[in-house]
């Protein structure tokens, strides 16, 4: 069915090149975005890993986006495992565009030994990636994550700030983190003719994110911090490819993380499925 959709639906994409930071952009109602994102890192003296997530993002309403994730990872000289699921919902409380646009984010995740690094909170750091998968899988994380997403658009630039709070359903303290991003398409004016590698097809930016400790030890002490440029390209068929090398800013961080992403948006999912069944599109 997926191949059927990919082969037949006209599509669009105007994605921000962020991997960790959320902007205030919501999924268009009725559209489904399918995305695979991977993070590759080597947490010396541990082994190289690749953590991947497959994401299904659906626009329920113009002000409500829901997203479901399947996560997995593979570690060199160790194993390849399924690490769990995430389900998130984003709500836009203000119905118009403002200088700063808030979005409320609620997520539940049930993961173990996850290495997708979709956010850094508390004292998450390099040491978390040194355990063998067999050991790490014993510690299942069941937690709620809340974000306040603030986004602004100004002269083609998008500037986004995320404030993150995570609470495990177990008796762990609240953990905090942040993510910041700024990005811009390389051209603001669209060309009259179709093109593949013209500047309007590229967007570039920078991301910074890290932990802010927990309720008992709030601050930057013993937290991982990352910074890196990020770039994406939208192919003529609407597929978006993203890449970002990200650099750990202290010894607590993984020195380098390389992120890759590929996404595709299916327009008006249910209308298309209805059409396939012989109904009106």
């Amino acid at each position: 069915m997926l191949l059927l959709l990919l082969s037949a639906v006209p599509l669009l994409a105007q994605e921000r090149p962020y991997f960790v930071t959320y902007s205030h952009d919501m999924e268009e109602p009725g559209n489904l975005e399918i995305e695979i994102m991977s993070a590759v890192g080597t947490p010396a003296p541990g082994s190289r890993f690749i953590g991947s997530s497959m994401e299904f993002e659906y626009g329920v309403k113009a002000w409500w986006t829901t997203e479901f994730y399947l996560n997995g990872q593979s570690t060199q000289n160790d194993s390849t495992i399924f690490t769990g699921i995430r389900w998130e919902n984003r709500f836009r409380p203000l119905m118009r565009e403002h200088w700063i646009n808030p979005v409320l984010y609620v997520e539940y995740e049930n993961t173990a030994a996850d290495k997708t690094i979709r956010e850094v909170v508390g004292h998450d750091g390099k040491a978390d990636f040194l355990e063998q998968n067999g050991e790490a899988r014993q510690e299942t994380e069941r937690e709620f994550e809340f974000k306040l997403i603030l986004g602004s658009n100004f002269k083609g630039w998008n500037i986004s700030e995320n404030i993150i709070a995570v609470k495990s359903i177990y008796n762990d303290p609240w953990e905090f983190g942040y993510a910041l991003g700024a990005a811009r398409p390389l051209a603001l004016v669209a060309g009259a003719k179709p093109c593949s590698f013209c500047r309007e097809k590229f967007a570039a930016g920078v991301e910074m994110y890290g932990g802010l400790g927990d309720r008992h030890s709030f601050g930057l002490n013993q937290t991982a911090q990352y910074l890196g440029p990020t770039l994406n390209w939208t192919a003529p068929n609407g597929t978006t490819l993203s890449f970002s090398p990200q650099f750990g800013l202290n010894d607590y961080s993984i020195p380098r993380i390389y992120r890759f992403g590929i996404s595709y948006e299916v327009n008006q999912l249910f209308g298309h499925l209805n059409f396939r069944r012989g109904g009106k599109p």
Partner: protein
Amino acid sequence: MIRVFIFLMVAFASCAAAEADGSWMKKVPPRDHERASPFHEQSEAVAAGKRLFGAHCASCHGENAEGKKKKPALTSERVQQQATEGDIHWLLVNGNMGRGMPSWAKLPDPQLWQLIAYIKSLH
């Protein structure tokens, strides 16, 4: 936790319903109403706008902006005659979220004006 979640859902739904009342054109501030397109009737902009329309708008409003199901036609008198370029720009930036029209503020402003150049060429 579940009660808080349900409360938030109901609150957001109420906000959306309230926003859906009335016509969007009445909400456009005078300053936005009077804004003029920097690409007014430029053929290059119309061609670019047509491409943008095919990519971002046609799945809801139809390949020729004729409308689909509950999604309105953009060839209507209201869009072509009554709404100014500034009105349509305001709608694209802010959306009409209670009625399913998302904000297109994620598109750069020049592309919104190119889109408007195409829409206005459909009269």
